[in-house]
């Protein structure tokens, strides 16, 4: 009897869970915000909408969002917008894939062998100093104004950041890991796969983020040259006819490409580098 009464008393007193702690002023950015990624773009969109509604942004300066949507629909049904989108997407993917593969391979060779570095690194640095866009006239002379020129330009422009960052990542791998691998009698292939590649991955992914943006830049420029399809083609036509709303449709699409591509790389980064515990959180 008494014991049950006592138990009940204890239970009744239990739920005061004081939480008194000393907490330091936080200097890191703190925990992740959900959907943080969308907040900035959404804010931008809101400003555009409100600005157009209030007349703060005149229609001649920037087409109102709903007009852009309408124009989008018109282009979609009457001017093969989907075809243009896939054409642009194809170019940028092709070029980016080529550039990434080339940049990565070159970085690997020059990062892992002294001879490779001697041969490769210099030319790349020289190439880096020459803006790829300045090379376009030369490429036009070499490859014509067709798809080939466009893809090569995009590949070259996206190769550089991949090379630079991967090479940097490779060289940044702690030499003590190589020593460890030596004492474990690891074969070269295993060493490459399990030490070098994971060690260079952060650098490579950073390079990829830059490369995606560079590829977009290249796309915008090369599509000004005699394109028969693609978003750039659509915008060039619109410029001739003074259709601002079509141009804005193109701009929005370019922006969306870049934004989504970057988001994709960042997602891969987060998944692939989950072993890293940095400010990313």
């Amino acid at each position: 009897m008494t014991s049950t009464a006592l138990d009940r008393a204890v239970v009744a007193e239990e739920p005061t869970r004081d939480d008194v702690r000393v907490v330091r002023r936080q200097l890191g950015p703190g925990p992740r915000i959900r959907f943080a990624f969308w907040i900035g773009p959404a804010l931008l969109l809101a400003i555009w909408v409100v600005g157009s509604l209030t007349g703060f942004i005149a229609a001649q300066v920037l087409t109102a969002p709903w007009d852009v949507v309408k124009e989008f629909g018109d282009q979609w049904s009457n001017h093969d917008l989907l075809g243009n989108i896939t054409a642009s997407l194809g170019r940028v993917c092709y070029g980016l894939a080529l550039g990434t593969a080339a940049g990565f391979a070159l970085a690997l060779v020059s990062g892992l062998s002294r001879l490779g570095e001697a041969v490769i690194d210099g030319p790349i640095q020289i190439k880096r100093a020459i803006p790829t866009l300045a090379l376009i006239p030369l490429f036009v002379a070499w490859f014509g104004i067709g798809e080939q020129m466009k893809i090569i330009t995009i590949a070259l422009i996206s190769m550089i950041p991949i090379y630079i960052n991967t090479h940097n990542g490779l060289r940044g791998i702690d030499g003590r890991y190589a020593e460890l691998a030596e004492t474990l009698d690891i074969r070269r292939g295993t060493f490459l796969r399990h030490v070098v590649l994971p060690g260079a991955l952060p650098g490579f992914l950073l390079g990829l983020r830059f490369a995606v943006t560079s590829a977009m830049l290249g796309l915008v420029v090369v599509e000004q040259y005699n394109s028969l399809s693609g978003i750039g083609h659509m915008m060039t036509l619109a410029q001739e006819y003074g259709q601002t709303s079509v141009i804005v449709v193109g701009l929005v699409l370019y922006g969306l490409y870049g934004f989504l591509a970057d988001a994709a790389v960042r997602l891969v980064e987060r998944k692939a580098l989950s072993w890293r515990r940095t400010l990313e959180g």
Partner: protein
Amino acid sequence: MATDVGGLSAAGVTVRNLHRSFNRSGGVLNGLDLDIAPGEFVALIGRSGSGKSTLLRALAGLDRDVEGYGRISVPEQVSVVFQDSRLLPWKRLLANVTFGLEGRDAAERGLRALTEVGLAGRESAWPAELSGGQQQRAALARSLVREPQLLLADEPFGALDALTRLQMHELLRKLCAVHRPAVLLVTHDVDEAIVLADRVILLDGGVVATDLRIDLAQRSQADPGFAGLRHQLLDALGATGEHLGSDFIAPGQRRAS
């Protein structure tokens, strides 16, 4: 590097007339001779900069760029435990332990090794999620899973606190009793050397200056012989007073001359 001296040392270590130097001013190792029998536990002590790590790296085959000559013969299977655990941060614990192991039973052996060092159930943790002592135990597991005939350890417990260090001693002794590798353990801690080793050698002037067999009945500081050995080694190290090394200047004193 693993050339046999006279073909007689199957699983032991033989070092003859080993010279190593990093610059012209003088050698770090000057004609060092050393034998370690199979299964023997040798602790290596010596002042900072006396060449302990240099010797260990020579035995591990990690000094290809270092000037010098001499004959070294080590067993086929050598494992190294470094002062830092050197776990690959992008590999989970089990993958770290079995890194470079071949064969279908690699994972199973890795798990067994992790269990031996008391890390059962942590096999899918990231190295960054482990405490310093746990990381060092994982490094030990990685070494032992290869069934080494020679285990080289360079101050493996240097960064651990006193209690964890004692636990690691216990663990290391147990594991050595089971696996019977020859061990060369570099340490700064004379007590650690006496408690763990069958033999303590002291490096000075680039050669083995003192070679002391430890014949204590019980491996602890409680043994009556312990204090004597400890004093003897500290004396040889020059840690007991007047000669703390030529660089040492007592507080409040000026360097004479």
